[in-house]
């Protein structure tokens, strides 16, 4: 540093903010995370801090003779989902709305809040949503049977601005049913334990007349203080960074983020699961990996599906030296994993392929109806009429035989439908338009059937027909119980006959 230069420090209260110093010629003189220091000659500069999606900036004129300059940015604009300040009565509010339960019971908290670009909202939470926004949410068993209709429970606004309900639940695995599209619900797996009860926070976006959940920004926490993550901006930010990295399929995070995930994982084991997923995505062996796997297993149970999958991959790829065998490594998974990245890894584990095909197992329905989400593993809930068939309670060879028999008739059903369409087709442009608007929310069977329909519409001749064997191939690929297929085809047929309704 020459005698004419001034030492400039720019820092942000958010340790993950991207901080930079730009000179008057738009040259970036220094940049870094959290805090930067740079010696600069006299001149005009702009200090900036980008935190989340918001940049703050401040002009700085350095004059000759100045020795030090400090610019400090607050946490404003940390995240669009950041919370308003904690209020003093928070603890009292917890007691007010937590329902009574047995000593061993846990609970599931669901919190909804308006958010996202669609609402024109800035960094702070908006006014609470109406209690009606909880309509359609339910706590279900893993095969979709409703245990608690969350929309019918009394709702409370939490200090973080969420419209929240709490359902008491005995320990076990559940699925949170989330209304996503035109009454269709997606399921998300949750484990309730006496010491760890899950809280799920969802941002709702206005879409025409209804509110729709933003599944990509969904937050899941095991923090004992329910909305605890919203009182800890640093943790929230670390989760957000981890969530984004997983959404992008990227591993390596900054030491600051990983440090928070490791250290605060004891208060919220969800952070441990995120750290493990990031380490897996990074693909580099480390003793930290072994440690975080063991610690998170101690907290959540070693048979947690995300941990079982992570251990299997870590062993296969030699990422975690000295990793022990635990409960769950040899038996079948008790539920689908919470993280989509782990589900994708599960699909690559040959030894577990059989579980995906077992109609009585917990992976059968998710494998067929997986919903495309960035971070969390969700799947479409089968239509209520056929729920018992889609995820049968009975186990064993008898059930499997029933499914096999049904597949044989599926071909006839499809052939019958295609034959009907040969003679009468509605407006192909309207069908295509409807398909373009909805294909993301359709199951694989529905997509295949609509594609077959569109293929027929492209043939002008009266005797139009699909390729030989199309129906039988589709029946095999569909691999869903006959009642489900029948219901699906009836519903689709009505829709395609009148696509613009």
């Amino acid at each position: 540093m020459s005698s004419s230069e001034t030492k400039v420090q720019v820092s942000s209260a958010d340790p993950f903010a991207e901080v930079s110093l730009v000179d008057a010629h738009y040259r970036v003189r220094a940049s870094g995370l959290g805090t930067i220091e740079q010696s600069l000659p006299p001149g005009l500069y702009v200090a900036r801090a980008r935190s989340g999606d918001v940049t703050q900036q401040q002009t700085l004129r350095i004059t000759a003779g100045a020795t030090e300059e400090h610019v400090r940015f607050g946490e404003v604009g940390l995240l669009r989902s950041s919370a308003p300040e904690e209020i003093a009565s928070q603890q009292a509010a917890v007691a007010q709305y937590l329902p009574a339960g047995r000593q061993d019971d846990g609970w599931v908290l669901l919190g909804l809040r308006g958010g996202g670009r669609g609402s024109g909202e800035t960094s702070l939470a908006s006014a609470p949503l109406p209690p009606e926004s909880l309509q359609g949410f339910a706590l279900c068993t893993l095969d979709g049977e409703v245990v608690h209709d969350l929309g019918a429970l009394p709702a409370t606004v939490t200090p973080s601005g969420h419209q929240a309900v709490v359902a008491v639940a005995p320990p076990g695995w559940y699925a949170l049913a989330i209304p996503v599209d035109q009454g269709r619900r997606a399921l998300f797996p949750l484990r309730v334990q006496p010491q760890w009860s899950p809280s799920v926070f969802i941002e709702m976006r206005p879409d025409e007349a209804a509110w729709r959940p933003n599944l990509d920004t969904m937050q899941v926490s095991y923090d004992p203080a329910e909305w605890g993550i919203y009182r800890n901006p640093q943790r929230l930010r670390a989760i957000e960074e981890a969530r984004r990295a997983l959404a992008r399929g990227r591993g390596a995070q900054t030491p600051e983020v990983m440090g928070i995930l490791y250290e605060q994982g004891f208060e919220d084991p969800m952070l441990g699961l995120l750290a493990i997923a990031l380490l897996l995505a990074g693909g580099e062996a480390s003793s930290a990996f072994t440690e975080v796997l063991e610690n998170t297993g101690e907290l959540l149970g070693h048979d947690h599906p995300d941990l079982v999958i992570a251990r299997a991959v870590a062993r296969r790829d030699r990422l975690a030296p000295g990793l022990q065998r635990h409960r769950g490594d040899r038996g079948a998974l008790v539920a689908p994993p919470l993280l989509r990245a782990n589900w994708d890894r599960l699909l690559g584990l040959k030894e577990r392929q059989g579980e995906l095909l077992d109609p009585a197992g917990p992976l059968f329905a998710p494998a067929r109806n997986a919903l495309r989400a960035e971070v969390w593993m969700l799947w479409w809930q089968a239509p209520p009429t056929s729920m018992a068939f889609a995820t049968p309670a009975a186990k064993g060879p008898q059930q499997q035989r029933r499914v096999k028999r049904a597949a044989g008739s599926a071909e006839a059903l499809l052939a019958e439908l295609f034959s009907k369409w040969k003679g009468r087709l509605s407006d192909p442009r309207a069908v295509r338009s409807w398909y373009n608007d909805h294909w993301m929310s359709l199951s694989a069977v529905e997509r295949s059937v609509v594609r077959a329909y569109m293929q027929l519409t492209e043939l002008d001749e009266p005797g139009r027909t699909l390729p030989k064997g199309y129906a039988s191939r589709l029946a095999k690929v569909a691999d869903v119980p006959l009642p489900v297929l029948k219901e699906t085809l009836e519903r689709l047929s009505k829709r395609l006959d009148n696509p613009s309704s």
Partner: protein
Amino acid sequence: MRADDYALLVGIQRYPGTKLAALQGPCNDVAHFKSWLLDPQGGDIDPQNVRELITDEPPLAPAPALEVFPPTQAQFYALFRSIVFGAGPVPIKRPQGRLYLFFSGHGFSDLHETTTHAALYCANAQPGLSLNINGTALANWCVRAAVFGEVVLVMDCCRDSEVSKKLDIVPLDAVNDAAGAKKVKKLEIYAVPFAEKAQERSFKDLGRPQGLLTYTLVSALYGAPLAQMGFGAGAKKGRSGHALKEFLQGCWPDVAGLDGPDAPEVVLPNTGDICFSVLPPRLVPRRVRLAPPVLTPATLKVVDDAGNDYVVVDLLHAPAMARVTVAGAAPVEQPFDGTEILLELRPQIYEARLDAPGAPPRSVLLPTVGDSDVVL
């Protein structure tokens, strides 16, 4: 004129076969970038060497079938061949030349691909068939084949991280010129970092919608400072890729806004750099609005980074007039109604100060990139 330089410009606004929303900026982006390319003070390219592939405006009637809705991948590669192969069977080598590959429209990146990259959807993309042009792979092909000495890739498109969509495998035959490839310099400019969304908006100064990247890039191509390039006898003052990158990042919040998308990602050449111009930065018009209006004689000063008065404006020294004096130049008079003054400035950040008798002094930061008015 740079006779060996070529450009292939693609702007796609409509994707009727998919859910992708119609855009308004890509054709304007192509026109804006092309105007810089053809400008003797800019890219200085021969107009014959510029190929353009854009969405038809107004739309063709009757509308083409979705499967062949233009611009298509086939049309693109036909144009690319016309540049790189001419009429012959083998690529033409232009070691002194530069190829600009410019893409504007909807795009994506592949989740599984860990190197910096982006692809542009073609207009005939359909659900389940995401036809696209992989701009990065094409630029890499040009490097491997050493068909140009320099390759500049601009991707003004989103880089959504896609799991199931497949990147276009460049359908050109492999041409590997290992020795030549080592000398090729490649500069890649992406509108946003991986998995982020690019944006377009209407710019007041242009009076039309454009992509944020193209708008800022053209500003940078005219305005980034000259720097020492190279060493020894070969050294020269030029506008380098490095300078362009810094300028883009430095002025980005002034264009995109403080809550806009992240700054563009620029991948510099592995060795050396590309010189875009040796001309000094071009002056840019800047409107300074005065609120409340100035109704009595006052002085407006534009102060540069060294604290010197770069421009001094005597407001209302005569009725309805202002006298503008740029440092080292003769004063110029312009009409002034008390509410705004138009200045021509070198592209950098200034401070504007207003001193009026009997009123407290007013000052404001005066950036010169972007279309937002400066209010003093």
